[in-house]
């Protein structure tokens, strides 16, 4: 296993929206070996509060040296990160977890909601580089245009077709990504790669099951360590018992999970 604990320098900090931040970090070790769907654990402050690291998907890798995380400010840890300055160093653990299993021979569709779009950027870029003849479709949604537009552009820049949806209709389809996905009328044998809120992933999973599409989902759980030591990050699995999202996942075949229909 190759994992690193590194002091990584912030080479860029961008505000994509009022509370959406993208940080570029300089770490050849992590950037060279990361694969789409993997994540890093980041220390957010200097003191002992907040105590634990925070998990973030690797959302882009460039030049075998830099990688990015993309996040929304939702609490104290992310607020501290948003307050960082370029040139400062962050302690990062990674790359962690097992990512997406890519099939280059079929129709691939990336489905993302909110910050779940983060790992899909890395995945989309990876697919288009490895197999430029079979580009994936991208269906992504967010609450409103402001949050979604910069990410739509990112996908478009690497030449992918994007089908956006917003809760308020300010960009693309007025409604949910699942509706957009349904309207795409994908062929049998298509594969979906999904990351987003639980209800959205559940809806996509149920739809895929009905259509016979394969469906991989990236699960967010609370994590203390991110590396298999605490056993805190469990998700219930179909065959009984639990899988550990930080090493069995975060990406799982949706069929293997035990979904809770709330």
């Amino acid at each position, binding site marked *: *296993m*190759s*994992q*690193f*604990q590194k002091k990584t320098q912030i080479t860029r900090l961008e505000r994509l929206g009022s509370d959406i931040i993208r940080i570029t970090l300089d770490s050849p070790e992590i950037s060279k070996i990361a694969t789409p769907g993997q994540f890093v654990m980041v*220390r957010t402050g200097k003191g*002992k*509060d*907040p*105590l*634990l*690291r925070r998990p973030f998907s690797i959302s882009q890798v460039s030049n075998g040296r830099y990688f990015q995380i993309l996040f929304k400010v939702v609490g104290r840890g992310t607020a501290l990160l948003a307050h960082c300055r370029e040139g400062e160093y962050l302690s990062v*653990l990674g790359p962690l977890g097992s990512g997406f299993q890519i099939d280059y021979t079929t129709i691939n569709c990336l489905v993302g909601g909110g910050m779940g779009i983060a790992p899909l950027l890395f995945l989309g870029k990876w697919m288009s580089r490895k197999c430029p003849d079979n580009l994936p479709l991208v269906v992504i949604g967010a609450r409103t245009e402001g949050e979604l537009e910069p990410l739509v552009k990112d996908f478009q820049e690497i030449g992918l077709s994007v089908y956006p949806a917003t809760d308020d209709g300010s960009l693309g389809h007025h409604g949910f990504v699942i509706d957009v996905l349904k309207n795409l009328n994908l062929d049998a044998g298509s594969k979906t790669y999904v990351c987003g809120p639980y209800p959205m992933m559940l809806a996509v999973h149920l739809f895929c099951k009905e259509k016979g599409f394969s469906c991989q989902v990236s699960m967010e*759980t*609370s*994590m*203390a*360590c991110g*590396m*298999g*030591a*605490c*056993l*805190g990050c*469990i*998700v*219930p699995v179909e065959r*009984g*018992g*639990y899988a550990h999202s930080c090493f069995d996942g975060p990406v799982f075949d949706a069929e293997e999970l035990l979904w809770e229909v709330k």
Partner: protein
Amino acid sequence: MGSKIKEVDLGVSIGSLRLKNPVMTASGTFGYAREFEPYVNLHRLGAVVVKGISLEPRAGNPPPRIVETSCGMLNAIGLENVGVNRFISEKMEYLQVVNVPVVVNILGDTLEEYREIAERLADVKGVAAIEVNISCPNVKKGGVAFGTVPAMAAAVTAAVKQKSTVPVIVKLSPNVTDITLIARAVEDAGADSVSLINTLIGMAIDHRTRKPRLANVIGGLSGPAIKPVALRMVYQVAQAVSIPVIGIGGIETVEDVLEFMLAGATAIQIGTANFINPRASEEAVEGLAKYVAEQKLGSIREIIGAVVIP
């Protein structure tokens, strides 16, 4: 750094077990050690304590199992583990190769279970000591934790001692009125050492959902938040017993290690800090070596219990 560590004497003894240094990792926070291979030179540690092992495998509690608190965390893992047989067949081989003393933390719901696990671990190569987690509820006595009643703690100790071929460390619960009573009871029952503290029992509620933040409602509090309580208990127990005391609770840095050793600990365990800095244990070893060299001590043992009470 490597050469420096060899120059100074960091060795300590836990019963008949000699450790090359006092730094151990705490049960449940270091997996089965292999998880830390990318970060730590495992063979440099005094010992590793593995995740608590029961007779049969356990799936553990439903999620959420962990929640962060101020300078601490609550966990209700529910003692998920592979069971003693799979532990021996699947996990020990790697640990034997790494060549680090392995302390196996064990737990049970009855005296018989504790005894049985000790028996199965007897003569397993690489097992350097057994650490008995007595914070578990005694299912036969209506779920009162073994660790809260001196006689019950003594009974578990005696049961494990009877079967064990290696030193037996009894791990004490801090959720008691007088921890020295329990410590003395297990010493009298034959324990070779006591380790403390296990987690304090705590709870957190999400005021928006009105639900407990842990599916199990209550959980164990660990991390820097509990360090002052742990240090006080180690100080008290070190004065009450004559067997070696292993200090645990909120230890992150070499400074913390020194505080616990000054309070009377012969060795220490690093727990929650492994999650935040996976190299914490090895850095503590390096820090101790530096300290002994700088202070020109003959050995690290000179500071055990050396706190100066004015």
